[in-house]
């Protein structure tokens, strides 16, 4: 079919976000031989050009205006619009991240485009691009396609397979000059609660605690397991409301939605709103004192027991297993 695809890439903590690399893989799939371009923002953007090329970009637009170092809807909407004008894509992909979900509708509105948000799968069928996405808090799924015109979608992190990078690939790198018009919403301060922690939405393994953890200190037991697994720590809303964990760790309908390979739920009962945030995990382990806890209905493996006994035992068992290799 030969489509021109533009990927809006994101840099976080000095590196490209995984979802941008996933989006590039999806872009190569739907391009069907057509040109894949990406736009990346900020004063460190140029440094990412090589990695973007290796992951599938034929062309990298670098918008290195330092005003892009802090996200604002106004600046990014202008920058993305400039990239779209420069490249003329048939398809546009972005990650469904804090930035993607905020700016994509703005850009879609500006250009009169449709937009499919939070897709978990992208496929080609009879020459058309078919998107799959969750609805009703993940209790159901829908498939969608575009009637015509420019295709635009935001992609949920951790759901699209990333192609193997090709170290020999190179891209044409172009500086995209964007004159950022006056910013209407001005960021005065940012409190980073997530710096240095593994991004939950991109983590492959998550160890998560609920009310059963009983205290902030109780999370140390989970942290020991997470350390052995190289996992991120998450929490249920109940644990956050009770002050055992910061809200930045909350997984669920009103927190983060995650799709790890392995989700270990400790002392989490499994309320619908929590499941909405993690039910798509590939493997779910539940550890809970209460054999009737709803989480046991959705887990792949369950242990009924006190997490303060079970989790340390599991930590040693896994440590031994990993040392054996």
């Amino acid at each position, binding site marked *: 079919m030969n489509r021109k695809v533009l990927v809006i890439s994101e840099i976080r903590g000095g590196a490209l976000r995984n979802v941008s690399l996933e989006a590039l893989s999806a872009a190569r799939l739907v391009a069907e031989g057509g040109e894949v371009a990406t736009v990346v923002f900020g004063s460190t953007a140029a440094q990412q050009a090589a990695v973007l090329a290796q992951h599938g970009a034929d062309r990298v637009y670098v918008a290195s205006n330092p005003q892009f170092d802090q996200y604002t*809807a106004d600046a990014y909407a202008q920058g993305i619009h400039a990239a779209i004008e420069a490249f003329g894509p048939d398809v546009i992909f972005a990650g469904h991240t*804090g930035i993607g*979900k*905020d700016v994509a*509708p*703005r850009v*879609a*509105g*500006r250009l*009169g485009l*449709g*937009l*499919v*948000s939070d897709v978990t799968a992208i496929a080609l069928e009879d020459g058309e691009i078919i998107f799959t996405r969750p*609805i*009703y*808090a993940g*209790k*159901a*799924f*829908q498939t969608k*396609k*575009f*009637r015509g*015109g420019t295709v635009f979608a935001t992609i949920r992190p951790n759901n699209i397979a990333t192609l193997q990078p090709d170290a020999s690939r190179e891209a044409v790198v172009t500086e995209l000059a964007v004159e950022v018009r006056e910013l*209407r*919403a*001005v*960021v*005065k*301060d*940012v*409190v980073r*609660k*997530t710096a240095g922690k593994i991004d939950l939405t991109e983590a492959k*393994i998550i160890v998560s605690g609920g009310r059963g953890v009983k205290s902030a200190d109780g999370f140390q037991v989970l942290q020991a397991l997470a350390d052995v697994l190289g996992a991120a720590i998450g929490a249920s809303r109940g644990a956050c409301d009770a002050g055992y964990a*910061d*809200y*930045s760790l909350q997984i669920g*309908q*009103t927190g*983060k939605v995650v799709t790890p390979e*392995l989700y270990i739920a400790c002392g989490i009962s499994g309320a*619908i709103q929590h499941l909405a945030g993690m*039910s798509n995990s*590939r*493997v779910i*382990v539940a550890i809970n004192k209460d054999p009737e806890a709803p989480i*046991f209905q959705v887990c*792949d*493996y*369950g*242990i009924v027991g006190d997490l303060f*006994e*079970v989790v340390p*035992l599991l930590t*040693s*068992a896994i440590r031994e*297993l*990993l040392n054996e290799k």
Partner: protein
Amino acid sequence: MQIIVLMKQTFDTEEKVVIEGGAIREDGVNFIINPYDEYAVEEAIKIKEQTGGEVTIVTVGSSRSESAIRTALAMGADQAILIEQEADADEYTIAQLIVAALKDKPFDLILGGNMAVDSGAGQVAIRVAEALGIAHVGSITKLTLSGRTATVERDAEGDVETIEVALPFLATAQQGLNEPRYPSLPGIMKAKKKPLEVTSAANLGLDADAIRARTVVLNQYLPAKKTAGKVLSGNLAEQAQTLAQLLRQEANVI
């Protein structure tokens, strides 16, 4: 202070989802104000109580949405506009219906929820801001007004951004913005008499072709039922060992 609240009626997320003929079955389901929109309604009413003014609810939906509208009016909103949902509609369509309904209606602030729990897309409010030529801040957890300047806290994937923006602007609400009130009995009685204007695309002078959905839903389905998981047995130490083995050999995750 004229405040517009964009509000949608949705399924209660506790509801079981049943699919019939590729579509979600709606009879017997309990419908509620979209929880994120409820924070927006509450915030608007709080601001009105402090600074005076009016809160107008704007909803795109069917006559079924009226119950949600009356609840918002009972909480303290002053009037509402219900725009009939087009059959062939997506977020592109819905935003245009709202923008047309707001034409000639003055506003200082527009609030909405950061997403609807049924669609999970979170597009409409932001599209409306773009069409109206105003700034937006998404996913706010705090809003303070000082004259014509708003200071908001935004939830940026766990980080907290403090942002200043001039009125008029649009904000979408994240959980934690406030605790929505329950409508009082006097509120419920008053709500019955508050003005509800019902309109449609045709009434608003919109061309059906121009606003027709850009995207189409092909199918809706339930996820494959997970086969029952294994709840392990034996003493806890044995279970832990077994689990570690299974995670490696069977599940291939470690």
